[in-house]
């Protein structure tokens, strides 16, 4: 079922192994006209880890995801994804880098004219994966997000939560190393939001996918950071509170006025809120 990837050098593979830097931002600055959206932002996402971006609307959280994908170019600074510098790549060069990236857009951004099967299998079809192999993978990932019975529906026939889960299935179908989530739970009821959070955790812990989650839903952010998924039996999955060492693999970054106002794990974030009125106001 594996989707073939371009072979890369052993040295790079080792560098990008568990704990290696899979996404690096180095003093990235971006402004739209006079408004500075990101001001010298630097951070590193390690392989298999999670970064959660918090911040008010317009703080530049979604912009970071678009920069990683190469949908936007920074004014200054360097961006490395999967060992390659993407900030100076052409659109054609970026297509290859995007092969290892998956993105879950706000509201899903599913293609209206295609069925769930075609949406989820879109990237596989683009990569010329044989139909039977692609179809089996589509069924597998739809089973993973528990939507196998909706395979022949159109996106308009799905609920908001189901659309997000199909979007997650589409993003993971080609087995990317990195998944980017743009407000995956915004506008969803708490029960549905938890199912989306659990999909994110499952992908991270069971499929070893590095992830960046942009959200302003604090409950979901802490849930993703402080829980882990474990295999139970052959097909079952169990979620439980992560031990401190595991929870440390999820880091929070809070953006404020284009700069990083906080960077650290969930415990640090709770501690710093006592001293920082802005973070306290945001978290309360």
């Amino acid at each position: 079922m594996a989707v073939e990837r371009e072979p890369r050098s052993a040295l790079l593979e080792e560098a990008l192994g568990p704990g290696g830097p899979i996404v690096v931002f180095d003093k990235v600055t971006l402004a739209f006209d006079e408004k500075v959206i990101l001001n010298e932002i630097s951070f590193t996402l390690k392989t298999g880890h999670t970064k959660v971006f918090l911040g008010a609307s317009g703080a530049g959280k979604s912009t970071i995801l678009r920069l990683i994908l190469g949908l936007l170019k920074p004014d200054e600074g360097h961006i490395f994804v999967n060992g390659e510098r993407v900030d100076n790549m052409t659109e054609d060069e970026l297509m290859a880098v995007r092969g290892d990236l998956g993105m879950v857009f706000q509201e899903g951004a599913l293609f209206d004219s295609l069925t769930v099967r075609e949406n989820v299998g879109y990237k596989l079809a683009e990569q010329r994966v044989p139909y039977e192999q692609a179809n089996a993978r589509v069924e597998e990932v739809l089973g993973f997000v528990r939507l196998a019975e909706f395979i022949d529906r159109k996106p308009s026939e799905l609920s908001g939560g189901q659309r997000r889960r199909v979007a997650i299935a589409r993003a993971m179908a080609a087995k990317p190393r990195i998944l980017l989530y743009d407000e995956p739970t915004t506008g969803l009821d708490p029960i549905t939001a938890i199912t989306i959070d659990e999909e994110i955790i499952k992908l991270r812990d069971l499929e070893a996918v590095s992830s960046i989650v942009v959200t302003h839903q604090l409950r979901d952010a802490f849930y993703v950071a402080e829980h882990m998924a474990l295999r139970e039996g052959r097909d079952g999955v169990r979620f439980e509170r992560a031990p401190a060492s595991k929870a440390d693999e999820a880091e929070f970054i809070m953006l404020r006025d284009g700069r990083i106002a906080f960077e650290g794990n969930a415990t640090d974030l709770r501690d710093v809120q006592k001293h920082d009125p802005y973070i306290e106001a945001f978290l309360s």
Partner: protein
Amino acid sequence: MVEWFKASLLELQEYLRMVGRAGRATVTRPFYYRDIIEQLDTIGVGSMTVVLLTGMFTGMVLALQSGITLDQFGARSMVGRLVSASMVKELGPVLTALMVAGRVGSGIAAELGSMVVTDQIAALRALGTDPIRKLVLPRILAGLIMVPFLTCISVAVGLLGAWVITMTQLQVASGVYWNSVVTGLYIQDVWMGLIKPFFLGFVIVSIGCHVGLRTSGGTQGVGRSTTNAVVASSVAVLVVNFLVTKALIFLMY
């Protein structure tokens, strides 16, 4: 004024960039054959009814009006000559193009605009697909192929409509009408009628794609883009028609 000028220049630059990228995509892979077939159907077959009606009624009204004018000179039998020259050289290509601009240009702008505001275009790029190859090039190729085809049909139907009116209302014999149609046409006229629709088809579809892909501002923006696409492509049809006519007259007559 300076801001308006700068914004217009930026639009022109982005339009030319899109056209350049579409041009490059015609000679490099991947090539989306299925999307081209779909667009041939949407743009060509989908516009058939409106083009048939436009062509037929234009031919009919042209015969009626020219009959009245030619009567003043006792030259009613020359109706076919006037209708054929007008339909083949000007009215066929321009009216077909304006109809296609209204139907197809607006549809393309609305469809691509909706895809932009719902992040589907960004999703396409994120999934490794170039929207120019997948969405723009198939539409431009379909426009290039189908607008000349629709123009031929429109002209043919227009001549038939004029024939019916000439026989039934103006009491001119069928043979006289068709003889007049043929003698009134020069080969240069036919070439002009065939060449112009390629330019007009290209302009309509490329403007629709450009305006659609530049949509911003949610559903209101989609509405604005749809209107802009129709206005811009209709005006462009008339301007390009003038320029191409002038060039062809210079080259062929």
